[in-house]
């Protein structure tokens, strides 16, 4: 089971870049790293997924070092609407009970 560890909360200001790091020391060879975002009173929403190095989409970038024991979600120039909980997932294929969202990182963006 690849347990993940993230900061419980982070604060930022509008226009800043935010980096949220997730530790997953026991990641397995076949595991992918996936991030979800959850706004209040909504279900989680997929943001980005990667296996190694760097992945970028229109929402975020994901940086994964060579040892894959951690990953960093980078949100460029955050706005108030980026205030949400961000979950890092690293699961073991074939066992849904291994897919634990954890408590996530509560990001608060201030004006």
């Amino acid at each position, binding site marked *: 089971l690849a347990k993940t560890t993230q900061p419980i909360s982070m604060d930022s200001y509008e226009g800043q870049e935010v980096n949220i790091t997730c530790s997953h020391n026991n990641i397995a060879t076949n595991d992918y790293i996936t991030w979800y975002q959850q706004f209040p*009173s909504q279900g989680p929403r997929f943001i980005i*997924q990667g296996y190694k190095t760097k992945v970028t989409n229109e929402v975020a970038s994901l940086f994964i070092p060579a040892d894959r024991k951690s990953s960093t979600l980078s949100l460029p120039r955050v706005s108030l609407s980026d205030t949400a909980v961000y979950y890092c997932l690293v699961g073991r294929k074939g066992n849904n009970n291994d*897919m634990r969202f954890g408590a996530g990182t509560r990001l608060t963006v201030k004006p």
Partner: protein
Amino acid sequence: GAGVSQTPSNKVTEKGKYVELRCDPISGHTALYWYRQSLGQGPEFLIYFQGTGAADDSGLPNDRFFAVRPEGSVSTLKIQRTERGDSAVYLCASSPQGGLASDPNNEQFFGPGTRLTVL
């Protein structure tokens, strides 16, 4: 297109009562998932359907919880003899092919959830 919908959005019931929560997945998605989310926690996996069958029900907490998906589309989560500890937001998600939310190319699309309150 339409996303995942869940009804009701809120349900208040008394301890010991029976409740049913409904999920309408995205059309064409073969996989459907139920999660439970308590205040301040991340979603907790309950059960996963691939088509009409439950591919993995290892997350159901006890035999008071049961879910069906008879035609491979709409699913109903059923909770018997509700307890106060069952109070939570129940989330449903669907995906095109199934597997873990962290599997490659298996993005799960979540509904807004049903907030269940057991008095």
